[in-house]
């Protein structure tokens, strides 16, 4: 049976240099990140350079993605949230494109590595902290003090609120990473059933039709999950940014 974890292996393609004795290598993960960014840039820059009043196909895709993210921000964080549009749009497009590229056989899924999703989640977390304190000053701490709580349990509640706030980047990153990892392992396992059963002769060929059908269905499901997880990551980013813009429930 093929090793289902093998697809997540990071391979060194070439070495860029050394920093403090550590080798900085260009890996297959970095390659696929560059491919994702290149695809997004090509789509957004290339398709809007025509600036047709009546958009063509590619321009419609770029405009639709803009509208989608802009509406998500407006409905979640209000119009003030639009100043974070570049961040949110970049996050959404990067995760979506990286997820979808990962579905193509023989490619590498960048978002199936927790180090990538944690960096993205920490980026949002630090943005919320820095912007929240910069804009609201110490009033940002009202986020941790809910109103209408009796004074004698307030310290406990504040403590729990702080823990809940600290757990945000964890759940934010684990969700995307685990979905991608689990989906790709499932696909690989069922796909290897097909080859195993096909090795048993005619009866095996007939039996192999079942997992093959399942793999087709799972691929469709994974496409949905790829979009949905990008969307969930985006909407949670907006909800967290909303806390920085309007603290104090």
């Amino acid at each position: 049976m093929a090793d289902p974890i093998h697809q997540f292996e990071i391979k060194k393609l070439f070495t860029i240099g050394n920093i403090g004795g550590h080798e900085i290598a260009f890996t297959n993960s970095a390659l696929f990140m560059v491919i994702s960014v290149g695809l997004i840039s090509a789509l957004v820059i290339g398709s809007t350079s025509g600036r047709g009043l009546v958009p063509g196909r590619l321009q419609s895709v770029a405009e639709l993605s803009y509208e989608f993210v802009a509406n998500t921000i407006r409905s979640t964080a209000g119009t003030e949230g639009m100043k974070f549009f570049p961040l949110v749009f970049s996050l959404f497009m990067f995760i979506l494109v990286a997820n979808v590229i990962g579905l193509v056989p023989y490619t590498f899924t960048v978002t199936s590595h927790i180090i990538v999703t944690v960096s993205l989640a920490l980026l949002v977390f630090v943005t919320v902290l820095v912007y929240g304190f910069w804009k609201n000053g110490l009033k940002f701490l009202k986020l941790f003090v809910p109103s209408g709580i009796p004074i004698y349990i307030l310290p406990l509640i504040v403590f729990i609120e702080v823990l809940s706030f600290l757990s945000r980047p964890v759940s934010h990153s684990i969700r995307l990473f685990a979905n991608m990892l689990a989906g790709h392992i499932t696909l690989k396992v069922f796909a290897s059933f097909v080859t195993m059963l096909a090795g048993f002769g005619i009866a095996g060929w007939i039996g192999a039709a079942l997992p093959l059908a399942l793999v087709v269905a799972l691929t469709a499901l994974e496409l949905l999950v790829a979009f949905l997880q990008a969307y969930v990551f985006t909407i949670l980013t907006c909800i967290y940014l909303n806390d920085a813009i309007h603290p104090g429930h």
Partner: protein
Amino acid sequence: MSDGTRDKHDPESPPADEAALSARLARLGRRLDQVGPSRSPEPGPVRSSADASASASGWARGFRLSSELVAGVLVGAGLGWLIDRWLGTLPWGLMLFLLLGFAAGVLNVMRSAGLMSGGVPDSTAERRKD
């Protein structure tokens, strides 16, 4: 610039063109408003939240809620373990923070479930609304 030469040719034409253009833009804007609801300038900071739950499948919702709980417990346990390592009080900080982390996880779940399902029965909803 072509505008300069046109001004010399026919001084009346450019203003007329601009007036016609702005009139046409206003007309088109009115027609757009008729066709679809115009975007309200300030839809309010808190989303209506029905859109998110409608588009998210049950699997995604379940996974989201469970990961909220797990994250709370993990962060609580991790913080407790770190504090124990600093102070050398090994089981106690871990135990206390595990419980607090569990509470924070439940709070997370209630909050995201309330955010996702629209109508929220408990008091956390009242806090989130303002």
